[in-house]
């Protein structure tokens, strides 16, 4: 079962802050879990290591995945996500920082749903989310929350 949460896998603290800010700016207020490297991301997704005991039946709605990560690279994380029954349906948007990386994602075709160039370009981000069919879900959620809090 998919929860409404978003897993952000990002090792750069500046990028993390800017991405979180961008999400907020776009009224995406889903809970965001941040993993700072590939290993930590997999530990979260599969309930191991630092995240042992987590209910892995609850998986994030979306993974925002940086490519250049310490310990375990983004493409390896993506491969593991697609290999595992529990996680293979999760939408993954790869965060790239250059055209070179976009080419890498294209050529690997490991099953990324989309990619977005950092720092998150919001027009493109919204497009990506729209094409994933997640936009309304995220938006509805945020709208519902706002109503709940504001109303």
């Amino acid at each position, binding site marked *: 079962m998919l929860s409404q949460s978003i897993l952000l896998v990002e090792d750069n603290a500046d*990028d993390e802050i800017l991405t979180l800010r961008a999400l907020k700016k776009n009224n995406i207020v889903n809970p965001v879990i941040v993993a700072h490297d590939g290993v930590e991301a997999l530990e979260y997704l599969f309930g191991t290591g630092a995240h042992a005991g987590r209910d892995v039946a609850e998986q994030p709605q979306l993974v925002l995945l940086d490519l250049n990560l310490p310990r375990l690279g983004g493409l390896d994380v993506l491969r593991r996500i697609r290999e595992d029954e529990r996680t293979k349906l999760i939408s993954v948007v790869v965060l790239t*920082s*250059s*055209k070179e990386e976009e080419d890498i994602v294209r050529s690997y075709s490991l099953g990324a749903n989309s990619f977005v160039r950092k*720092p998150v370009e919001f027009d493109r981000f919204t497009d990506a989310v729209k094409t994933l069919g997640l936009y309304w879900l995220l938006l509805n959620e945020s709208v519902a929350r706002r109503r709940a809090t504001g109303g």
Partner: protein
Amino acid sequence: MMGIVGVTILAFAAIVISSEVLGHHVERQLATIQTSYMPKLDLEPELDADLERIARGFQDAVATHDPDVLRETSELRTRFDEELDAAGTAVDPRAARDLKDALNAYYDAAYDVSRRMMADETGEGLVAAAKAMQAKQARVSERIKSTAAIDRRALAGAFAESVRAEARARNYQLWIAVACLGSILGLSFVLSRDLIVAVSTLSKGLRRFGEGDFRQPIELAMRDELGDLAAHANQMAASLARLDAARARAETALKASNRELEAFSYSVAHDLRAPLRGINGFSHALMEDHADKLDGSAKDYLNRIAGAAGRMGELIDALLAFSRLSRAELQRKTIDMTRLAESVVEQLRSSHPDRKVEFVNEPGVEGFGDPTLLRTVLENLLGNAWKFTGKRDGARITFGTAVSEDATERAYFVGDNGAGFDMEYASKLFAPFQRLHSANQFAGTGIGLASVQRIIERHGGRIRAEGTLDQGARFEFTLPKPKEGAFSC
């Protein structure tokens, strides 16, 4: 080779020697005919005539009673003997002796009778002596006949024998010639078979070398020109193998350095861009989130920070794209250059709808090269023309073919009537990050023409620029035509 020459010489020698031997045989036969029969042919009438002369000599002596005439008959007898002797071996010596004896007997008798008649002797005794003398003369005549007669059967036999000998000689010569020819043919077959095997070995070996396989030398154990050829080919292959190994090492080194360059480019992209994103992102955040606390100059500074960071990002992108140009594999195709230019200009028009630019495009221009990279070429050249005519009324950009001095390539040009440039700095145009205009005048990364040059050179073409300050610029480049049979679909 030497074998064939040897056999040929031997064969000629055999033919010459055999014809010499057989010729001698035939000549001996002919000599026999000459010595045995020819002298006899006229002997009989001559001896008859001599005998007749002797008889007449005696008659003259009797009639004239001249003792000198009688004495002269002796010379006639000598002449008879000489003629007989002249016949030589053609006459059987015993028969010749008998003939001479008979002649002497007759001569003596005739001499005696003549002397007695000259003395006017008569009587029975003289008549008897005369009869005996006549008998002796008849006997000489008979002897002449039997001695000088030619054995015609023997002559015919000898002649036939000589003709047969000649025929035999011809036959022998023919057979010897046939035998020689046969052995020459046989030997040349054997030799040429070796030759064919050798040539085929050589050819296979050379083909192997041609395919770049130098491991196995050509094995040809011949001590002639072909053996030398094989040895030279092996030497050449050894040198080529050394060169090939050196080239392979260089290629490996080049690949390694290319990989390093790629890794470097990648880390440049990453490591330079990360802090840049921070600068850019946080100045935006500051602007958006705390705009109420910032005065005009603070906002201006923030804008400049973001602008500078953005510009640095563009430079990094351009540099990476430029380095990527050198590595990407060329995928050559035949391209409609007219349409490509048109689509680039349409793109420019749509992103600058405010600009009014006249574009003159030559129809039906074809090119052969990598479509993506040639698009980059036209994007840069037409984009430059677009950019540098930005301050001109009646801006005009032209694309078309130029005259090429080389039949194996096509030449193209992009011209404009824009800002142009000073030819003094033309050499700097194509160097990366060299700009002839300040960023305030015309924006740009300074990487465009360097990229264009790199692409054209990778295609095997050339590019040059002509310009006049404030008059316009013209860029001419060439692309090789496809090689025969290399047309792409």
